[in-house]
């Protein structure tokens, strides 16, 4: 369980590294998606309680994991899908206008 936190830190760092260094816009979107997935993993990890059962209470229970971060994780998944779709739509528009996916080329062609 305790090994999840390094995984989350590595995933967030990987995503931000991709955003900082990549030139292709699709790769930047992949980096942002990696960060978003790491956040969902974090929400799942902080809701965990040792020996807790899933919060579906159809039988007697001792400990139950925290249901609140899981509900927020569901929200985060939907919002990730929406933001990714909008980013991809903007990339399609930019490609139609500049005929390139390189973010440095687009910066040069201002105006």
């Amino acid at each position, binding site marked *: 369980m305790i090994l999840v936190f390094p995984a989350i*830190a590595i995933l967030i760092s990987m995503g931000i590294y991709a955003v*900082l*260094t990549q030139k292709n816009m699709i790769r930047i979107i992949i980096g942002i998606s990696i960060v978003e997935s790491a956040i969902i993993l974090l929400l799942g990890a902080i809701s965990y309680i040792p020996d807790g059962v899933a919060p579906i*209470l159809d039988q007697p229970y001792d400990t139950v994991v925290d249901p*609140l971060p899981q*509900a927020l994780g569901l929200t985060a998944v*939907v*919002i990730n899908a929406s933001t990714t*779709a909008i980013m991809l739509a903007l990339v399609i528009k930019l490609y139609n206008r500049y005929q390139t996916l390189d973010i440095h080329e687009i910066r040069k062609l201002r105006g």
Partner: protein
Amino acid sequence: MKKINFDKVFSFILVSLLGLFIMKVLYSVAGEEAARFTADHYISYGVDETGAINIITAILFDYRAFDTLGEATVIFTAASVVALLLPRHEASMLKTEFTPVVQQSIAFILPFLWIISIFLISYGHLSPGGGFSGGVIISAMSILIIFTYGYRYMTRRFNVKKLSLIEDIGALAFLTIGLAGIIAGGTFLANSQVGIYPGPPGELLSGGLMPLSNFAVAAKVGTGLSVIFLSLARED
């Protein structure tokens, strides 16, 4: 000798520091035994108060239904923005044709996916699932249809206008369910707190208005994500 890219080195150092910082914060947060008052309340009284044995659905559609309304608005906005940004007759991406084997197996799978999605939606307050998961499976069905049979086949059956109509009906249904809380004498989207009969916990008809809002949100999410994908995959 290869030239060292100083941007990449600098980014790597920054990102490593950030990762160490995040790890330190996470370990220090996990070390403390924080009191979870809201979670304890939801777990101890959630079943009696809402009539739903799935506490996550109880949170999403009863305690924090207003959050869910905001979430549905985000999908609505995203679908509108994507449909607005991408004009027709541009951006072709799906020119590949699959073999009959793929087409036949997808045709075999689709009814089962439909059953799974309806099961997840209608049993959302009793078992893992709910309106969001079922709606996402519905949109996955439309994505499978677009990939295997092509964009034209999909639009002949369901064009964007028809899907948007279903999405609007879902959103309006959810808002109408929210008005029931006001009519019963409480706040907007209030459910069991204002005396709407929650039903026996564990039965299919329980949880007050939760099954209805599950269906409304599923219609909204499923068609909303389908509209987003249809707009992204639009071909000439």
